[in-house]
């Protein structure tokens, strides 16, 4: 309970720090925001009127307070560029991104565990060495490279199996949604799958060498039963741990993946906001993204706590 409470306080403190940093960005933006909107040849009266309209003539701390209070209630203000309230746009884009990230997460879990168990089962073989080298390569390639290679291979280059852009949201029917999500999700999943796979491999090898697995084998149990009943449940603890500890990784990778596949998610919304210098929109996207990251790390901590007896008992 103490552990949970301290993590909760810590997470709250980090969220405040994150919101301060996001707010500070617009304070530090080169060139006055007003000049950015009006251009350099605006009259002093126009400048004054707009800064009053945007509330920029009030102290920064007061504006920060109002901004955070609004954000907590789901009001992120109005987009300068689109002249519309930010929240509905943000929610729609966020939903798309969460679907993408969720599918990538399932791919990472399934792919990583399969990879780890297969390589550990054949430890030292040529298959193991090849797959492990592939995994190191997989962890080291940037998303824009993986994504571009996939497009060249199956997304319209050599073969045209999957569309490389044009996601229309969940309303477009299962086949359409699945085919549009496939390439972005695979691209997003590659790096983490390779990483989770290597962790699973190490854990499985450890368990395979343990006394209880030897006993199970000596009892004459079929290999399949040994694997499913004795090896997997124990080997999966570190796997699930790294899986949840790295959910946040998807949050960063998704920005690049959305750019590669022109995917209408929150990452591309932020890139749009940056290129248009739409600062309320930049703030909103950055705050939401960073908060999701912080919260998913928090959930990761909780899962790790639930799985690890040492921490659980120390916490009680």
């Amino acid at each position: 309970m103490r552990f949970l409470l301290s993590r909760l306080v810590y997470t709250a403190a980090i969220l405040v720090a994150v919101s301060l940093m996001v707010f500070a960005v617009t304070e530090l933006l080169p060139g006055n925001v007003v000049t950015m909107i009006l251009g350099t040849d605006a009259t002093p009266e126009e400048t004054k009127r707009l800064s009053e309209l945007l509330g920029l003539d009030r102290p920064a701390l007061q504006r920060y307070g109002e901004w955070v209070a609004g954000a907590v209630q789901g009001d992120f203000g109005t987009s300068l560029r689109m002249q519309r309230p930010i929240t509905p746009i943000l929610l729609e884009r966020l939903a798309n991104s969460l679907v993408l990230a969720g599918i990538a997460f399932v791919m990472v879990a399934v792919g990583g565990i399969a990879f780890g168990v297969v390589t550990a089962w054949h430890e030292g073989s040529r298959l193991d060495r090849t797959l492990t080298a592939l995994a190191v390569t997989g962890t080291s390639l940037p998303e824009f490279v993986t994504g571009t290679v996939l497009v060249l291979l199956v997304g319209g280059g050599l073969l045209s199996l999957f569309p490389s852009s044009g996601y229309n949201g969940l309303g477009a029917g299962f086949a359409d949604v699945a085919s549009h999500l496939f390439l972005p999700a695979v691209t997003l999943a590659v790096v983490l799958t390779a990483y989770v796979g290597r962790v699973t491999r190490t854990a499985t090898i450890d368990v395979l060498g343990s006394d209880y697995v030897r006993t199970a084998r000596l009892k004459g149990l079929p290999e399949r039963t040994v694997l499913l009943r004795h090896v997997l449940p124990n080997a999966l603890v570190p796997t699930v741990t790294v899986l949840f500890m790295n959910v946040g990784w998807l949050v960063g990778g998704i920005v690049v993946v959305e750019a590669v596949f022109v995917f209408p998610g929150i990452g591309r919304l932020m890139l749009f906001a940056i290129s248009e210098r739409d600062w309320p929109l930049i703030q909103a996207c950055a705050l939401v993204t960073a908060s999701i990251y912080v919260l998913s790390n928090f959930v990761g901590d909780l899962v790790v706590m639930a799985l690890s007896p040492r921490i659980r008992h120390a916490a009680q």
Partner: protein
Amino acid sequence: MRRLLRDPVFAGSALLLLAHVVLATFGTQIAPYPFDQMNFGSRLTGPDAAHWFGTDTFGRDVLSRVLVGGKITLQFGFGAVAVCFLIGLPAGLVSAYHGGWVDQVLMRVMDVLMSFPTLLLGLLILIIAGPDIVNLILAVGLVYCPRTARMVRGAALAVRHATYIEAAQARGESAAYIMLRELLPSAAGPIMVEFCIRLSYAILLGASFNYLGLGVQPPAADWGALVQEARSTMLLAPWTVVFPIVFISTLVAPLHLLGDRLDEHFKGHGRA
């Protein structure tokens, strides 16, 4: 070291890395054409004798752009790692040596920096600072310095209470002496591993920013920006995108493999 060099993966990776450094150093001189010379008479021509890697949509020589791009890529890679170590190395050493509240304060600051997704933190820094290569180096270096600091701290803590450190303290050596002459050399193995891995991540992240258009500005282009430029032509003229991808992959993957092998090597000797 000899055993490491006999490992084909290690030796191959080291050779590839060396080749990249040589190509990048002399890239501008080797390049057959100026990297920004347009030629609208030969747009999107495939690889041939005049243009080994073909030409892009403005008729620019892809080989020349890839060679010059390699120079930019290595510049921001090494630059960012230098920033990482300039901040992370002292922070990690001081944290491990002093412990107590100094350690607490330094590590909590690093925690806050690490509570941002790396890409988002870099984006925010680049929005404030504006897109160019120096800011790119600073952004990537700042984003990754907490990880370097933590690693150095961990490696130094492992030997913090060794007898020879106590001996140095008993001799009355200064804190700076002990950190630089005793702690630092003992942590050399993990630091080498960190250098390789960090360099590969720095190149990866920096190239991603360039891909998003937030780093070096046209007509200059690193490999990330080259892949971005070629987006609209890649299906029509695959060579515009394949060569930059081959170059960045053959740089980043070997760096990772090198770090991996070094890590195993040092662990095998009980030094990590």
